[in-house]
């Protein structure tokens, strides 16, 4: 699952602080995804981002089945309320692990589709801004 040195874990932990509960984790992850979607939607379109996000949920759901059932409202890019609810309903450990896996999968998927340098160029500032500092950006990906 998640290794301790995982930069996504470190970034999110830095963002939410120690001993954060799952609601706090959800409150950090949802704005981060909003920021990412705000960058990607204009470039690849709302539907393009929606497809990318659904694919990430599907892949991450293989390890975290509670993520596989998350369905956001159709046609409302930037709305991650269903994900926020799902994260908040888990234990803090599960919520953290699932959120980190989802963000990591999104990064991996983008890397495989448009390459590391373009992904970094598009999302570097969003990662940095929303996930607390340069550590994630430096290790991206």
């Amino acid at each position, binding site marked *: 699952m998640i290794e301790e040195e995982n930069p996504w874990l470190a970034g999110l932990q830095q963002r939410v602080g120690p001993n954060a509960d799952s609601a706090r984790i959800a409150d950090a992850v949802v704005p981060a995804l909003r920021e990412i979607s705000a960058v990607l939607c204009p*470039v*690849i*379109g709302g*539907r393009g981002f929606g497809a*990318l996000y659904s694919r990430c949920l599907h892949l991450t759901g293989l390890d975290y089945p509670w993520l596989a059932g998350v369905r956001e409202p159709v046609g409302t890019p930037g709305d991650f309320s269903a994900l926020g609810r799902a994260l908040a309903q888990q234990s803090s450990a599960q919520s953290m692990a699932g959120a980190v896996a989802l963000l990591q999968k999104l990064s991996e998927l983008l890397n495989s589709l448009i*390459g590391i340098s373009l992904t*970094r160029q598009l999302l570097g500032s969003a990662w940095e801004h929303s996930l607390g500092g340069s550590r994630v950006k430096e290790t991206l990906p």
Partner: protein
Amino acid sequence: MSTKVKIHRLATGVAGLDEVLGGGLPEFSFNLLAGPPGCGKTTLAHQMMFALASPERPALYLTVLGEPPLKMLRYQQQFDFFDAGEVRSSIHFVNITDSTQTGDLDQLLNRIVAEVEEHRPALVFIDSFRSLMLASKADGGMYNGLQQFVQQLGVLMTTWQATTFLLGEFTETDANPVFTIADGLIWLRQNVQRNSMVRKMEITKMRGQPTLPGLHTFRISEAGINVFAPAPAAVPPAGLAPGTVTATHPLGPRLKMGLAQLDEMLGGGLPRGYSLLVAGPSGSGKSILAARFLAEGARNGETGVIAAFEQHPSQSRDRTLAKLIERGQVGLVDSRALDLSIDEVLQLLVVEVRRLKATRVVIDSLSGFELALAPTFRQDFRESLARMVSALAAEGVSTLMTSELEDRYTDLRFSPYGTAFMTDAIIVQRYIEVDSRLLRVLAVVKVRASHHSNELRLFSIDDDGITIGDRLHDQEGLLGGRPTAKARAEGAGDGPATKSGASQ
């Protein structure tokens, strides 16, 4: 001082395109890049965009339906020109597909204006405009609505001082208002003949400047698009009839051929800037003579270029040439690409000539060259070759071309292409049978504006290369292939070889 507005021309960053456009792309022009799927529209747009965009001159690339942006970005970054570092700083990709959902052109125009206001681009690309038009309600009879939309878009982009490109899978038979309103129409085509495909570009309209008319071949490689602009026609010196192909240099110090006897036969060597055709049957020694020509240049401190269309010089029997290439004294144009055009080969040659400051060029051979061309160019081979010879003369180089010539003993021919007239000098090699042996003879048939020998001289080829011998004094009828012993008049000698007058 002129009060007329000066139109700045933008360097497109696409090799050869600025020449075809007539000096670059007019700033603030409203252009259409049109052609069938796969012809290179998106690649051309990206290449120009990455060349032109800067933080001070940002570009806005609007994607509409058509190719999904993720895929477009995935594929376009394979090209060398794609610099991810420019994205979001100089180049902004924006997908406006959602604004086409209703088919309302006013809403679409407002969206485009909003994006332009936000990003303040100096360059705007809409890909694909065809998809945008198909998605609009105006398609299918509402020509006027579409015309108004395009006209408003054109006016807006120009007043925003944006150079604009609409990409689309249009056909020339479309009755499309874009054609009327656009300042520039750039058509990309894929010409398929038999198993070959050749990409061609045509600028059918570019307001305010003289473009190069006609179809221009281009190739897409990892470096992007390379357009092979035609060579400018050489201007004949005063007093010569138009179309006369001639050397640019007056007869001065001549180039040595590497064979003293041959130099003597040519009247003292090959005049600089001349084109020389060496014609002969297979195996007669044309390539060896050509290699000797280049080696002699290198010996005198000159550089050369060879376009090899038959055996690769490294596999050649003549190791001297391979060494010259290794040492950089001879540049090799060894295009193994399929479906070549003469303009492409000429460009490769000229680039090498200029890089090496070469004075000698060899094309070995015209027969191999013709076979390497795409079928679509073969029918114009003679005309294109004449243009190439002329362009090389304009570069100031001396060109030796070899040509396979089937031995026909019933007629005297110098070239299978009718190329004899376009070269300044001709050497012909032939086989003859003497005493049950196949011997080689050569003759200088023509050296324009110069005296030259009229002798048929024996020559042989061995490990040391070519050795030119004497005339066959006691034989006659050599050109028939089977000479016979001359009936010798008692006391008569052979006498010295006579020199002919200058070739005309």
